[in-house]
């Protein structure tokens, strides 16, 4: 096997060469800048070894942004290829790789880390905690995700990209039809990142259950924290399924087992079954935190408390249950018969009910509010109708007999882009504009923000609305080209124009960030938006220990209550003296351990079992070292706290 892989180790092709050059130049650039400004030590001490949830959150967001860029390039390449009929900008094989990496990266390495990043940034602050429950594990989560993503991306230049779709259906993705290392990259990259995601889920759940500020009952928590709680539960129970599915396919590919084979009694449809047992909860994992962001943003900028708080919580709990009982709607066409399809069709439609409840609650929250149309609020407002289109078309897809028509057509593609972009991505943008001052201490520019918003939302609809029509006209997903004369050409051209429009919209965001770093309005109060939850009660950015005194809470919307509410007096307690604060130590081990995982899994991708085994052994050594480490935390002294607080003008 080895020589065969060696021949194909470095991928050839003009665009790949260009990419190679770009990657090398960028890497050299980064190394150069770091060396020139003598920042290596800083990078290691302040970032690579950090266990601070706020910094980890920022690293997630940076990585997600890079992945958004990569996935976006894939998207533009696909749209360029499909702009006109009979195009040969990309060949069939290459097109397959591009849609595979696009989908995988966007869901697992863009949407997930953006949301996990925002959760890391905001959730512990919202509940008045000093960190997450397991800060060290949090760093492991980040680095395994990061190296998983890097492993997946490495396929582009070394060995070749996976090409069986983000759903990687067997038997196409099995060893017989897809022998190259590309699919191995998919399997190992996702498995590595999945470890980190599962750990994040456990970490967030324990944090929320155990570390809320005194007095904060579950039903007092901000809605974003609630959405994190439910999302964590979904992660905890869905991700093991992905782990198993990926591992089984790995066994088929590496060790010749026959779980998903066509021969020897294997069942390819079992892959589809397992994939979607994870896959459907996964789509809710990437939408629920966005729902949470929306709830925060809408109630803040309407100056009102959230309408129907308990209904919001109840509907999320219902979604958590139901999302584990609907997975067959992704493969109605497998033909499991009327009983199975009806059951899962009905359960799917049920899930639209709690989803609808939330939409009404947002609308009623705004009703008679004094709405401030900030950029964050614009994204939230755009979310509602866009997501409703996505949800309603989802219900159409849930009608099993009709799905035989829609399935795997551009109608489906339009559906999930309306939910994933119109829902998740708009939500993430709302969250970025909203929490930006909390992360960095300055606001993004509102004017550029509006340019960013309007170009993106218009282009988004130009791109994806025609896809509903194309789907009904019979255009199927994943086709790399089409002949003229089918009536598809104009719509395809329009979509491509829209796609480039979205890219321009994103450029405004990039410009906005650069501009605001220099000129953006500084947030000196810590309360950039006249906010309602506890994250706005500390400085921007928050100090390492988050709160000099852990706040005591008397009800919902604690910070609003503190400022204007009926419990105002209770919050005005006399300033107590500071006490030393107990914090976890930084550690380089999460980074190194994940690097060892990366090397090991890269070895397995090429079936170099020696590299794979040694890497895994290193991982276990790092775990042992951790187990034997007893000096894991330190105290921040009172003087240091006084110093920090004085510098922030809080004494």
């Amino acid at each position, binding site marked *: 096997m080895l020589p065969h892989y060696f021949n194909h180790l470095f991928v050839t092709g003009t665009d790949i060469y260009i990419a190679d050059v770009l990657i090398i130049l960028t890497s050299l650039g980064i190394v150069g800048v770091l060396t020139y400004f003598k920042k290596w030590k800083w990078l290691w001490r302040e970032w690579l070894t950090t*266990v601070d949830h706020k910094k980890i959150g920022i690293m997630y967001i940076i990585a997600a942004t890079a992945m958004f860029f990569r996935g976006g390039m894939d998207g533009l390449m696909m749209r360029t290829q499909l702009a006109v009929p009979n195009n040969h900008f990309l060949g069939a094989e290459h097109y397959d790789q591009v849609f595979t990496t696009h989908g995988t990266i966007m869901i697992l390495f863009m949407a997930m880390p953006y949301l996990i990043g925002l959760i890391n940034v905001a959730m512990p602050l919202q509940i008045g*905690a*000093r*960190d997450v429950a*397991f*800060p*060290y594990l949090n760093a492991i989560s980040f680095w395994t995700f990061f190296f998983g993503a890097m492993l997946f991306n490495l396929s582009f230049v070394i060995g070749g990209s996976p090409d069986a779709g983000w759903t990687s259906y067997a038997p196409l993705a099995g060893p017989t039809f897809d022998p190259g290392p590309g699919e191995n990259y998919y399997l190992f990259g996702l498995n590595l990142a999945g470890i980190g995601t599962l750990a994040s889920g456990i970490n967030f*759940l324990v944090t929320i*259950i*155990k*570390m*809320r*500020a*005194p*007095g*904060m*009952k579950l039903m007092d928590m901000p809605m974003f924290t609630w959405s994190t709680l439910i999302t964590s*539960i979904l992660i*905890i*129970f869905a991700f093991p*399924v992905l782990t198993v599915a990926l591992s089984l396919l790995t066994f088929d590919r590496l060790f010749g087992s026959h779980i998903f084979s066509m021969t020897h009694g294997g*069942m390819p*449809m*079992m892959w589809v*079954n*397992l994939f979607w*047992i994870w896959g459907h909860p996964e789509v809710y994992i990437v939408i629920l935190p966005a729902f949470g962001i929306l709830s925060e943003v809408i109630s803040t900028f309407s100056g009102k408390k959230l309408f129907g708080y308990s209904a919001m919580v109840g509907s999320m709990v219902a979604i958590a*249950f139901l999302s*584990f*009982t609907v*997975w*067959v709607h992704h493969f109605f066409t*497998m*033909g*499991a*018969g009327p*009983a*199975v399809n009806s059951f899962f069709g009905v359960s799917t439609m049920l899930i639209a009910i709690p989803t609808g409840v939330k939409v009404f609650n947002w609308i009623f929250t705004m009703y008679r509010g004094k709405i401030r149309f900030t950029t964050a609020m614009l994204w939230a407002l755009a979310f509602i109708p866009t997501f409703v289109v996505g949800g309603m078309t989802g219900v159409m897809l849930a009608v099993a007999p009709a799905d035989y028509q829609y399935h795997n057509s551009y109608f489906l593609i339009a559906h999930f882009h309306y939910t994933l972009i119109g829902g998740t991505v708009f939500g993430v943008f709302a969250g970025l504009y909203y929490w930006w001052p909390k992360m960095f201490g300055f606001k993004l520019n509102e004017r550029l923000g509006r340019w960013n918003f309007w170009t993106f939302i218009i282009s988004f609809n130009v791109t994806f609305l025609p896809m509903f029509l194309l789907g009904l006209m019979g255009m199927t997903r994943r086709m790399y080209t089409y002949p003229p004369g089918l009536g598809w050409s104009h719509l395809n051209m329009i979509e491509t124009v829209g796609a480039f429009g979205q890219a321009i919209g994103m450029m405004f965001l990039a410009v906005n960030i650069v501009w605001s770093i220099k000129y953006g309005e500084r947030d000196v109060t810590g309360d950039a938006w006249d906010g309602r939850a506890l994250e706005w009660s500390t400085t921007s950015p928050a100090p390492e*220990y988050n709160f000099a*005194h*852990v706040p*005591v809470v008397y009800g919902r919307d604690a910070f609003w209550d503190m400022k204007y509410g009926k419990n105002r007096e209770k919050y005005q307690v006399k300033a107590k003296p500071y*006490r*030393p*604060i*107990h*914090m*976890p130590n930084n550690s380089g081990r999460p980074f190194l351990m994940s690097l060892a995982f990366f090397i090991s899994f890269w070895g397995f991708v090429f079936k170099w079992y020696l590299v794979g085994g040694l890497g895994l052994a290193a991982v276990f050594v790092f775990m042992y070292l951790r187990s034997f480490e007893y000096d*894991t*935390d330190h105290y921040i002294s009172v003087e240091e706290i006084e110093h920090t607080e004085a510098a922030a003008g809080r004494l």
Partner: protein
Amino acid sequence: MTTHSDVNPSHGATLPSDPKAHHETFPWKHILGFVLSLVLTFAALGLVLSAALPLTAVIVSIVVLAVLQLLVQLLLFMHLTERHGPATHVLTLVFGFFVAFTIVAGSAWIMFTFHATVA
């Protein structure tokens, strides 16, 4: 990392369920658990080897016996009911069992009907 707060978390009041339990001098609970697990194991084995019942009945009974053993482990060995704060771990475990059941029963139903329909 221990406490990241300088106040003790007053929510989820810490309730040691039964401090006395830890001062027992003879491990009654464990011996009971061990005996029960042996009895349940051999009962299942006996059902299978004796072939006295029809196939479905055997399978249903041995699965029931396995579930009972699970309860023995959870209750007598794993201190499941010991609470130091809210019973979050019990709820999580129950949800885990719900998902596990859905996966096993659902997959079997789906794949066997599919097989019957197609083959």
